[in-house]
């Protein structure tokens, strides 16, 4: 499939800022979708509210742009009403973990067959740069002008604990591994989460001395550690700050029964 058969050509150039990680994630997703051999006519893209959730509106397929934080709940209803559909959810860090936290953990627990791509830019970008639940400690934002006093969530670890079938985290610096992970997530049955730590140079980088997208990518590279190398390390990898690290890799790959199999609607729709 050509890239502009996958994306709606009449909506290009997209509204994302220069250097936004969303575009990189879209490229990797397109590759992974193609390699997985899925069909656009049978796939529905669901998004919440935010820059990341605008991605479904650019894809040449059915798109459901829902309320803030509730994308997983909408996707659950949609998937169970028509189990034959492939449902992909694009969401952000605040949309998934803050306002959508309850739906996130229950979605992992319930294990409905859907793929969630969480574009984690550590900030609330669309509204102008407010602190998010994944903003690192001591970083600046418009609502933490004296430094973030709170500590961030580790969304991938929460998904593992809540029972998702496949969880992986990568940054936009590791595009090949990200593509492979997205392909595994799309092909896996059950609730799959790929968290992409992505750069927001306009609202996050600029306030934290990383206004150039290249500087943010450098920051990712300097702080990224492959998870299989830190399994025995004593560092607290939930703490994303300059002294800490971003752990990347595939966190879990298991085969819990998906919800449709459990209630017996798998073959319907």
């Amino acid at each position, binding site marked *: 499939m050509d890239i502009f058969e996958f994306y709606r050509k009449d909506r290009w150039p997209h509204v994302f800022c220069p250097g936004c990680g969303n575009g990189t994630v879209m490229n990797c997703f397109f590759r992974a979708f193609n390699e997985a051999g899925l069909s656009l006519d049978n796939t529905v893209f669901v998004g919440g509210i935010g820059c990341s959730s605008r991605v479904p509106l650019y894809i040449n397929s059915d798109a459901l742009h*829902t309320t803030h934080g509730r994308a997983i709940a909408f996707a659950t209803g*949609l*998937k169970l009403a028509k189990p034959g559909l492939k449902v992909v959810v694009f969401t952000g860090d605040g949309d998934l973990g803050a306002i959508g936290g309850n739906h996130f953990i229950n979605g992992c627990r319930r294990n409905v067959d859907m793929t969630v791509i969480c574009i984690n830019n550590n900030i609330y970008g669309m509204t102008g740069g407010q602190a998010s639940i994944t903003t690192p400690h001591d970083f600046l934002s418009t609502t933490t002008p004296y430094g973030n006093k709170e500590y961030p969530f580790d969304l991938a670890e929460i998904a593992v604990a809540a029972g998702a079938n496949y969880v992986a985290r990568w940054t936009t610096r590791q595009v090949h591994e990200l593509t492979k992970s997205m392909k595994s997530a799309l092909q896996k049955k059950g609730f799959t989460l790929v968290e992409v730590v992505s750069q927001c140079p306009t609202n996050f980088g600029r306030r934290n001395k990383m206004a150039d997208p290249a500087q943010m990518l450098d920051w990712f590279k300097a702080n990224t550690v492959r998870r299989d190398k830190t399994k025995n390390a004593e560092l607290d990898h939930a703490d994303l700050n300059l002294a800490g690290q971003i752990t990347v890799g595939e966190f879990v790959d298991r085969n819990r029964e998906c919800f449709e199999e459990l209630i017996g609607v798998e073959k319907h729709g």
Partner: protein
Amino acid sequence: MRIPPGEYFLQGNDACVEGALASGVRFFAGYPITPSTEIAEGLAQRLKGKDGVFLQMEDEIACISAVIGASWGGAKAMTATSGPGFSLMQEAIGYAAMSETPVVIVNVMRGGPSTGQPTKASQGDVMQTKWGSHGDYQVIAFAPASVQEMFDLTVECFNYSEKYRVPAFLLSDAEIGHMRGLLRIPEKLKIIDRKEMGIRRTDEAYDVPDDLVKPFPVFGKGHKAIITGMTHTENGRIEPEDSKVHSDLVTRLNEKVLRNRKDINQWEMIGEGSKTMIISYGSSALGPKEVATTDPNVGLLRLKSIWPLPEEPIAQAAKGAQRILVCEMNLGQLYFSIKRVAHDAGCKQVELLSKLGGEPPTPSEVRHKIRSMGAI
């Protein structure tokens, strides 16, 4: 599986379950809340395997979201709740109105505000049904007053929500929900399905060219639809900065229902033309009904549909009346709108009998109030 036609002795909530199944509901997402839990439990028993999907979600917001998602997947979808859960659902109800999603929400009203009286009735959510979410939108709401109407009006809720692509509400209350009575299920039921995009229908309901209802694009059929709560044009293009697009869209969403009010209005009239009229709805109409049937000078206009406000029958009743009594189990919610319509129609004495505390007004209370208003 639907139960066969016949006579049954059921609880109001169970009759609602039967009505939903008769309409073809295939998706229910619920959360336990008194006094609506029986609806969730009934559908949990009946929606299994091929019949449909029952989900108990983590909170009411997830319930209404899942129901809207399921509607876009092509299923007739419903949820049931009471006051506190209804307050949680408002954002998504606004989304359903803006994205024109057909959903049915049953609100078995209980004493409010807040946790209030979980096991006793009230009619305190009437205004919230119409104005609960932000912005200007219209909804369709029905108020049953018997077990039979719990069945009939649930079917009507599904029909109207599918026909007009608007959220439809069944405003029951703890009295009607838990009351046991006779239910007659007829042989044939009129069922209306959504006007699906790309499918030609011969049903005359869809022959109206300017009914302002756009064809419904079910997902997974290649329509490439964009459904959003932001201001959008016809083909789903998001245009939040364009004031003409927004005003056209919001006007159409409202006109779609208001223009078709004559089709939606449903009421029961006892003693038409009486000088003393009582206007009421739901379980607070039970007392006035006894007064109206026993007293030839008193009439009753019992509203079955309360949103959009059925102004035509109210005006008709007010024309010939000298005094109107509005009975509600709240401190006056429909009262002020009814008063406005009645004043415009010529009846100047419109008074309110408001009954709080959880029980419907009794016939003697109604008679007492009418006497104080100047009737015999």
